[in-house]
C-alpha cells in the first residue's frame, strides 16, 4: 500500500536570488576577472537559479593575496578571544537565518528540506559555535606544545553538504588563526555565497575568508598556488589522489576527506526494526550522496531473509520527489552528471548478475531523480560492492561469524565509516576495535556533531574534522625543549 500525503511545500519566498554572482574577495563581492560563467540549476526542476563566475588563476591569485594580507596584518595576531567573538557572531547569525539557508540549500542542491532544515543548518551553526570556544583555549589543546597557525588555507568542498562542509572547513581554520580561500562546488555555490552576507554582518575583517566559485580548474589553481600553505579537500578519492600528487615536493600541508564504501553490519540478535531504520537512514539519507553512507549491508544469515523483507516493505513507504515538500524522504539527485554515474553503476550491477529491487514509486517528470534501490545476489568483487556509487543504491551481502563480517567490512580500499547492529555489548566493542574505519556507529548511523572527530582510514583520506582532533590539521606544533616538566 502506498500512503498518500497532501503536499506540504516549504515556501521559497524567503530567498532573494540575484541573477548573477561575482566572487567574494577581501570582504567584497567583486566581478571576476575571468569572463567564464556557469548556471547553477535547481536539480528538482532543471530550472536555472543564477549565473555563477568560474574563477580563473588571476581571480584565485587575488583571493590568496587578500587572504595573505589578512593573515599577516589582522587575523594571525588577533587575540584568540576576539577571533572567538567573530566566530560566535557567525554561529548566531547563521542560526538566526537558518530557514533562509535551508531553503536555498534545498533549491540549489536537491536535498529534502527536512534534512537541510534539521541536519545541515543546525550542525553548521553548532560547528562555528564549537570552534569559537577553542579560539581562545588553544594553549590547552596540545599539552606541552604551543600551536601556531599555518597561514593561508585553500579549502575545496563538495556538493553533498555545501553549507555543512563550509562550516566544517572554515570554523577550525579560523579558530586557529588561519585565513581562507574557499571554493564551493560548481553545482551548489549559492549558500556559500549567501554566507558572505553573514561575514559582512558579523564584521569579519576583509580577506579573512575569500570565496571563489568554479569547477576543477579553479580548484587546481588554488591547489597549485604558491601562496597557499595548506589544502583541505573533501571529495572523491580520485581527485584527492590527484591533489596529493600535485602538491608533492611542496611544503603545503594536506588533509583529505575522501570516499567510502561503508559496511552496515546487522547481527541476528539486533533489534531488527531499529536496524532497518538505520539501514534506510544509512543509505538513503541525502539520496545516498554521503561519503560515509552505509552502502554495503552485511546481514547475518539467520535473519537475512527477514531483514530484506522488512527493508523492502519499508522502501514502499519512502516518499521520493519534490525536495521542497516537508514530507519528502528522498529528494533530487544533485546533477545530471551524478545521475548518469549512478545509472552506469546500477547497469554494471545488473550486468554482473545481481538481483535488483526498486519500490513502485513514481518519479517526478522534471529534474533528476533515482528510485531507492537494493541489490542482492552480489559478490565482493562486484563493482557495486567495491566502488562508491554516491547514490541511493544498497548492496546486500551476508555473513555467518563476526570474524567474517570484519573481513568483509574491511575488504575495500576505503575506511571511512561502519555501522554495527547488535544487542550484545562486548561484541559491539570488539567489532568497533576490529573495523578499519574512522567512525563506527553502534546501533545508529549517520550521526554528526561538532565535538565528534570525523575522517577516514586508508584511501578515505587523512586528518580529522570535529573535536580537538579537528584543530590539528590547522596548526603547527612547536615543541618546547624541556617544557612540560621534562
Amino acid at each position, binding site marked *: 500500500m502506498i500512503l498518500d500525503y497532501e503536499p506540504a511545500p516549504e515556501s521559497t519566498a524567503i530567498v532573494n536570488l540575484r541573477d548573477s554572482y561575482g566572487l567574494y574577495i577581501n570582504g567584497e563581492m567583486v566581478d571576476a576577472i575571468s569572463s567564464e560563467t556557469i548556471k547553477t540549476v535547481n536539480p528538482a526542476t532543471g530550472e536555472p537559479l543564477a549565473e555563477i563566475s568560474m574563477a580563473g588563476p588571476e581571480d584565485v591569485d587575488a583571493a590568496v593575496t587578500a587572504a595573505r594580507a589578512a593573515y599577516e596584518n589582522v587575523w594571525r595576531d588577533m587575540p584568540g578571544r576576539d577571533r572567538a567573538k567573530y566566530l560566535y557572531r557567525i554561529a548566531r547569525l547563521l542560526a538566526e537565518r537558518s530557514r533562509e539557508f535551508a531553503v536555498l540549500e534545498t533549491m540549489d542542491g536537491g536535498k529534502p528540506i527536512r534534512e537541510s532544515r534539521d541536519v545541515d543548518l543546525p550542525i553548521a551553526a553548532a560547528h562555528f559555535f564549537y570552534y569559537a570556544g577553542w579560539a581562545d583555549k588553544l594553549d590547552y589543546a596540545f599539552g606541552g606544545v604551543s600551536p601556531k597557525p599555518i597561514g593561508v588555507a585553500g579549502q575545496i568542498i563538495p556538493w553533498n553538504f555545501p553549507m555543512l562542509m563550509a562550516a566544517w572547513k572554515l570554523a577550525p581554520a579560523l579558530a586557529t588563526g588561519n585565513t581562507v580561500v574557499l571554493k564551493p562546488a560548481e553545482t551548489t555555490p549559492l549558500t556559500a555565497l549567501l554566507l558572505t552576507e553573514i561575514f559582512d554582518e558579523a564584521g569579519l575583517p576583509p580577506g579573512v575568508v575569500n570565496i571563489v566559485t568554479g569547477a576543477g580548474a579553479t580548484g587546481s589553481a588554488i591547489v597549485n598556488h604558491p601562496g597557499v600553505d595548506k589544502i583541505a579537500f573533501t571529495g572523491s578519492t580520485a581527485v584527492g589522489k590527484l591533489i596529493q600528487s600535485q602538491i608533492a615536493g611542496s611544503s603545503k600541508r594536506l588533509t583529505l576527506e575522501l570516499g567510502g564504501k561503508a559496511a552496515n553490519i546487522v547481527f541476528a540478535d539486533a533489534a531488527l526494526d531499529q536496524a532497518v531504520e538505520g539501514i534506510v537512514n544509512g543509505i538513503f539519507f541525502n539520496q545516498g550522496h554521503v561519503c560515509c553512507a552505509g552502502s554495503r549491508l552485511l546481514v547475518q544469515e539467520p535473519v537475512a531473509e527477514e531483514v530484506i523483507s522488512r527493508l523492502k516493505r519499508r522502501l514502499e513507504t519512502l516518499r521520493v520527489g519534490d525536495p521542497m515538500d516537508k514530507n519528502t524522504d528522498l529528494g533530487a539527485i544533485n546533477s545530471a552528471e551524478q545521475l548518469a554515474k549512478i545509472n552506469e553503476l546500477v547497469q554494471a550491477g545488473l550486468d554482473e548478475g545481481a538481483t535488483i529491487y526498486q519500490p513502485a514509486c513514481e518519479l517526478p517528470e522534471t529534474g533528476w531523480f533515482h528510485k531507492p534501490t537494493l541489490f542482492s545476489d552480489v559478490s565482493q568483487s562486484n563493482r557495486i560492492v567495491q566502488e562508491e556509487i554516491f547514490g541511493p543504491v544498497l548492496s546486500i551481502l551476508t555473513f555467518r561469524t563476526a570474524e567474517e563480517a570484519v573481513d568483509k567490512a574491511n575488504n575495500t580500499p576505503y575506511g571511512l565509516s561502519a555501522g554495527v547492529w547488535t544487542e550484545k555489548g562486548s561484541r559491539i566493542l570488539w567489532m568497533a576495535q576490529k573495523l578499519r574505519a574512522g*567512525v563506527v*556507529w553502534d546501533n545508529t548511523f549517520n550521526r554528526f556533531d561538532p565535538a565528534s572527530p570525523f575522517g577516514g582510514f586508508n584511501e578515505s*583520506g587523512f586528518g580529522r574534522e570535529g573535536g580537538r582532533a579537528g584543530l590539528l590539521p590547522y596548526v603547527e606544533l612547536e615543541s618546547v625543549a624541556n617544557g612540560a616538566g621534562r
Partner: protein
Amino acid sequence: MNAKRTKSTTRERLTVNKTYKLFIGGGFPRSESGRIFAVPGADGTPIANACLASRKDLRAAVEAARKAQSGWAGRTPYNRGQILYRIAEVSESRSSELVGELVASGMTKAAAETEVGLSIDRWVWYAGWCDKYLQVLGGANPVSGPYFNFSLVEPTGVVGVVAPDESPLLALVSRMAPALVPGNTVVALASETAPLVAITLAEILATSDVPGGVVNLLTGNRDELVPWMADHADVNSIDVSGADDDLVAEAQRRASATVKRVVRPSPEERQWASTTAESPFVIESFTETKTVWHPIGR
C-alpha cells in the same frame, strides 16, 4: 664490530668478524640479491660490508611487518611498554658495542657515548607512553544527543621509516619508537653512510622480546628503495626523515596512488639530541583516530 679487522702484527688472537645482514621477520637473512656494499670508516677505508637490500627484500620486510601487525597492536599497552623498556635495558648492557660502531663510523667517542645514552633514554621515554598516549590524544567527546561518543587513537598499520645519515642510531630510534608505541610495525631503512649500528640495534631488538616482524631493518640505497616503499600498498605510512627534498617529493607523488600518509618531522623534531625531538604528537602522526558512537538508553 670490526674495528680490529686490520691485520695484526703482534701475536694477538685473530678476531672473528661479524657478517652484517638484514633483519626481516625476526631473522637475519642476507639480501636475496646477493649484493653488498662497503661501509667506510672514519678515514674512508672500508670497515665492513653491509647488505644492499633489494626491492624483493623490501617486499619480504613489508610482508613480515604486515603479518606481525595485528599481534603487536593486540598486545596490552602495558606489555608493549615493558618490551620497549626491555629494549632500553638490553641497549644499556650493549652500549659499549653501540658506541664502538659509531666511533668506527667516524664519530668521536664522546659524541658516540652521548648518542647512545640519548637513544636509550628515548626508548625509556616512549616506553612509558604505551599505556598513556590514548588518555592524552583520545577520550570522550561531549556530543549533543543521547550518545556515548569516544575517540580511540589506533595504529596506522605498517610504517616505513627512512633514517637520516646524521645521528644514525638516535634519529632511527627517535622515529621508530613512537611508531611502535601505538602498535604499528616498522620497516626501517638504516642510514646509508653509517648502517652498521642499525644492525647491532637489530640484534638488540631480536633479544628484547620484540616479536619477529614488528621491526624489520634494511641496509641499502635510499634512492633505490624509498620509491618502492612509497608505492607499496601494504605500507600505510612513510616517515621520510632521511630523504632529501627530491626523494621526499618523489615519495609524496608515489604515495598519492594509495593515499599513503607521508610523515615529515618538523625542524624542532629534527633536533635529535634535544627533548623537542620527542612528543606524544610524534606518536599521533603514526595513528588514526577512530570515533565510536553508542546510544544511551534503558
